[in-house]
Structure formats: C-alpha cells, structure tokens
C-alpha cells in the first residue's frame, strides 16, 4: 500500500520514449517470411472458398444428373410399355377385322379409286408488273 501511495504522490516524470518502428529493425529474411505468411493465408482463404463453391456445385450437378437420368429411365420405360400396348392393340384389331362378323372387307382394287393426276397447267404470265425504272433523286424512299 505504502509503495503505491508513494508512487501516487511522486509520479515519475520520465519522458515516453518513442520506440523505433519494429519493422524497419527486423531482418530482411524475417520480413520476407512474414509477407509469405500473409500471402499464404490469403491464398488459403481463397482456396477454401473456391473449394466450397466447386464442391457444392458438383453435388448440385450430380443431384440434377441423377434426377434427369431417373427421368430418362422412366421415359424409356413408358415408351416400351406404350409401344407394346399399341402393337398388341393393333394386332387385336387386325385379328378382329379378319372375322366376317365384324362386317369389314379387305381392300381390293374394286373398292379402291385410282385418280389420274390432273394435267399440269402451264404457269400463267404474272399480271403485276415489276417496277424496273430507276428511282428519281427527288423521290424519298420513306419518311
């Protein structure tokens, strides 16, 4: 306690010395290493950020790919089933059509009409005249 009181009473009047800038006193090798450290940190931070972005992107694309592939598989499956059903129906109808009770008859030349193609007509001369004169200098093309 007494010490402290004493010190309060008699404050030292020492002048605050200005410290020399430490940097200037550091050896060049250390300064270079410090610079390296800082740049590596920045680089590291950027790399981590880039990795996170690329990784999330990859995961997203993979997910999308899988989804689309699933859709492709489903579409192919549907196509197969549709073709099978369609062909089975066609066959069933054709079988039915062969039975006389359906009242359907096969196409024969007798029930077919063949039309001769109409004679080709010569193309008519065009009635509208194509403008062939030169445009006068005074006539504006448009406003």
């Amino acid at each position, binding site marked *: 306690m007494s010490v402290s009181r004493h010190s309060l009473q008699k404050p030292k009047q020492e002048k605050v010395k200005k410290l020399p800038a*430490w940097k200037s006193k*550091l050896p060049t090798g*250390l300064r270079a290493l*410090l610079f390296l450290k800082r740049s590596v940190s920045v680089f590291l931070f950027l790399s981590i950020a880039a990795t996170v972005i690329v990784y999330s992107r990859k995961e997203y694309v*993979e997910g999308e*790919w*899988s*989804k689309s*592939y*699933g859709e*492709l598989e489903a579409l192919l*499956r*549907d196509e*197969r*089933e549709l*073709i*099978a059903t369609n*062909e*089975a129906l*066609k*066959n069933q109808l*054709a079988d039915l059509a*062969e039975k006389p009770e359906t009242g359907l008859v*096969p*196409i*024969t*030349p*007798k*029930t*077919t009409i*063949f039309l*001769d*193609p109409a*004679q*080709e007509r*010569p*193309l*008519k*001369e*065009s009635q509208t005249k*194509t403008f062939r004169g030169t445009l006068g200098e005074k006539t504006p093309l448009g406003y």
Partner: protein
Amino acid sequence: MKRLLWGIDPYRMMRKGRRSKKTESIPVLRLFLVWAVLVTGAIALGWKLYQLQIIQGSDLKRKARQQQKSSVSLYVPRRPIIDGEGNFLAMDRLLFTLYAHPIMFKIDIEEMAGKLGKILPSLTMAELRDKLASQKTGVRISDQVMESEARQVKSLYLDGLELERRHARIYPSEDVAADIIGYVDGERRGQAGVEYSQQTLLARNELILPLSYTGMERLMPTHVPEGLVNLDDLRLQLTLNLRLQRAARAALKGQMAEYKAKRGAVLVMDALDGSLLALVTEHTYNPNDYHEYGLKLLKNWAITDLYEPGSTFKPINVALAMSAGVIKSHERFNDTGRITIDRSVISNHDYYSKGGRGYITVDQILQYSSNVGMIRIAQRMGRKGYYEALEQLEIQEKTEVDLPGETPGYLKPKKVFIRSGIEAAAASFGQGLSLTPLKIVQLHGAIASGGKLVTPHVVRGLVDPDGNFHWQPPLRKKRVFSAQTSQTVLEMMETVVTKGSGKVAKIPGYRIGGKTGTAQKASATGGYQENAKITSFVAILPVDAPRYVVLAVIDEPKGENTFGSTVAAPIVKEVMEALIAIEQIPPSTGGSPRLTAPPLSRGD
C-alpha cells in the same frame, strides 16, 4: 530477439527483451510446449495421412468401392425388329416375378393383400389372400409383373417382398410373321428366322458396370462410363409389309382348310431389288410360346425344302431357249400329245381328253402347259447347252437370302443329264430338278426385272427412329436374260392368264402374267408318288411395268379337282388384290400418269 521461433508474435518478442530475467523463462517454456504440441500433432497427422493415402491407399480404395458400388447389369434391350411401315414385329421388355415371404411381413396378410391388389390388377383380393396364406416363404405371386408395377411394388418399401427381373422378347403380331422373324430362347439367343440370322445386328452385350447408387437409389454419375446415356436406338427394319403378310396368311389358310392340304407357302417379292414383301408358310407357330410347338414347325420350309417345280418352271426354260437364240416367239412346234424318249412315254396332262394339238405357238405351249411342246423347245438347245444354261441360273447355289437354313437347289449330275435324253426332257417341264419355292420366285424375278437375278432378302437395314439408315446389306444383281427376252416371255405369260390355265387369277384393269404348276411328288424310294402332288401358281404384275412376283405353293391338296389353277391361283389372286391396294399400283388400262413436266415458263 536473437532466436526466432515460428508462430511467435514479434511484438511479444520485443517486449520480452525489456522485462526482468525472472519472467522471461516461463513464456519461453510455455511457448515451446505449445509449439511442440502443434508440431508433433502436425507431424502425426501428416504421418497418418501418408499411411492412409500412400501405404494403405489402394487397399482402402478397394474396400470403399466394395461398399459403395455394386456391379449392376444395365438393361440393354435387344434391338427391335420393325416391318417396312414401322410396325413393331419384335421388341424387348422387362418382366418381373414377384415373390412373397409372409414370415418376414411386418404387416398382416390382409393389409399386404390390399396393398398389392391395388398394384396388380390381374389378381383379385381373394386370390392374393389365398396365395399369401398358402406358404411361409417363397410364394410366387405373379410372373407377369410389368415394369411400372414392379416400380410401384418397390416404392412400397415393405419387408418380405422380392422381385426378380428377367428379359422377355415379345412378338405383338403373334404368328403372322413368325416364319421370318423367328424367336429367341431363354438365353436371349436367336433360334430361327431373322432373330437367328441377324443375331450380330440385334444382340447387344449387356453392360455390367460398377455403378454407385445413392441412398435414394439414384445413380451417382461419378464413375458412369461414356456411352451409358447414348445407347443407340437403332431398329432392324425388314422389307416385309405386315398388312400384306396378314392378307397372304388369311388367303393361304382359307385355301388350305378347303383342300385339307399338308402345308403351303406364299411369297411376294419386289423384283427391282429382291426385297420380300411377304413370306408366309403354313403351318406356323406363335413365337411368344415357341416351346409349345414341334421342331418341324419352327423352320421355314419355303427356304429349307426342295420340291420339283413342275410347270411353273416352263417360262424359265422358254427364256433360256430364247436367250440361246434357238427359238423365236412366233415359231410353232408340233404338239403330238405324247412322246417317247429313251423308251419312256411322256404325255401332256390333258392327253387323254384333248389328244395332240398339232402345231402350236410358244405362248400356246405355255397356255396349255404342253409338256411335249416344252420337250421340243429343250431339244433345240442340246443337252449340254441346256445344262450349262441351267447352271447359269445358279440353281445349285444358294440365293444368299438373309434367312437361316437355306438349301441350294438340285440338278442331276452333268454326266447323267447329258447321257440320257429323259433328264433334259423332264427338266423342260420342271421335273427331275428340285428347287426351293424361294428360288422359283428369284428366277421369275429375273423375268420381272428385265433379266436380272436379284438377291432375295428380308432385311432392309438398321434404321433410327427418324428413318435414316445406318447400315444396309450389300445386294448383288446378275444379268441372265436380256431385257427384250424377259419382256417377251412375260407377255407370253400374260396370255396364260387371259386365255390359258391361269384365268382364275385375272383382275380387271390389270395386266398380269402367270403360270400354273401341278407337279407329282418324288417319293423317297425313287420314282413318283401316285396321289401326292404339289400345286403352285406364280404371277408377275403389272406386265406393262413389271415389278412384283407372287408365288403360292400348296403341298398335297386333297380332293378331286386339285391343280395349280384351282388350288393355288385363287390365293395368288387374293394376295395380288391386297398388294395392289397396299402398294397403290395403278390399273394398267387407262391413261398412264404423265411423268414429264412441261418446261416452266416464268413471268418476269
């Protein structure tokens, strides 16, 4: 100050120099300890990393692959087969067999039956309940579960259900084109028809890939090999026309039933390039249930079996004689009705009713189907010349049709043929030599195509869904007659339909050339069978722009009036009627469409 340690604040270092020596030692020790811990940790981590990545790397990688990945056999369907119009004749599909193991159920049977009943409409609730209650494990619920149904069953995520995948080849047109398409066996190998002969074009290896799936059963794209998504969707297109095939089958079936025939065949060929538009043989099979039929039915007898063509071969002989320059179309030959050659008596089929006809023209020989007239024509060529001409037609070679099991035709050995006159005489009216029905069509194709022997074929090529061809078979053509000869012979054949034995096949408005054939069947012991004959009719249409060859062959028709003209010709007529409608062949009479356009005059 003098010693520099990594990771130590330089400010601190500087301050340290001004402090008392007492306080100096503690932070250094502490700092060293912290540093040591960090460095040891880093080294230890590095070491572990080295161990995991480099030393145990490959081993761990293998273990990981084992856990993440499974070899998945990817579904690569066998290529579908389509007809000339794009109708599917054969296609692959996946079918599943659903097994249930009630012992593993976590819900009661009633509930399970309810859930499955909603997905499988072919089974009633009662049936499902009975099946599920019948056994503790391995209950086969259905072996016809469709792909979409199987997916729904899977998505229930219920214990005690098991799905087994299998490939099934379905033939929607059933027995209509079985003779051409064939079938595949349980191991997906083609066993007949195009399925067998075009195995290399149709089959694609199943891809067994190490694929990774996520927990949601989604494919992970990390190791997906190239080409997985881009499997081609090519189809094998045939030249066949399903509608014509159906019409031909109906016509053949009807006539076979009427004459209780043993077997029959109808072939339609486009002689321009040899593409077969229809090829029907009876009896046939349904390739969807091929195992229910005998092996005999599974072959295409129009390609595998030889027969003596009889009179349908006569126009070919006339063409050969005309090519050799030994006869002229307007020449007359003495038809005595019967003739003795090498002590054998050969007579016309109508000798007992009509006797000899005297001098008749070549077209009349064809119209009356005169054997004696044909013998006289063949004699003009000389035996050696005739034999060599027959060899030019490649009778003893295969036509190289793209269907399996083809048998080359048979001619008597050259020595035998030249030594005895009876061989050449018999060959002149189509006996003593054997051909497949397909070969007869090819030979008549030469008459229809202006003298060229074309390769009959059923495969048009590999086509994508937009109709672009990616592969087409190479085709061969060989000139055997001149264009002039073939047209003359064709016009003679036209008189067979207008005036002769082929009247039945007449279609008003169309110029049709034809020839009947009724041949005795050779017996296995030599000689000919008494009551067994093979009747046929061949037609070429239209005579003014010849293109299509239609042949019908009926083997062993029963009854009184069984000839090519009565049994086979009506079939050919029916098929031609369908052909005209399907291929839109305009009538021969009447104005032909103008094909050349007048020069264009344009207004300025």
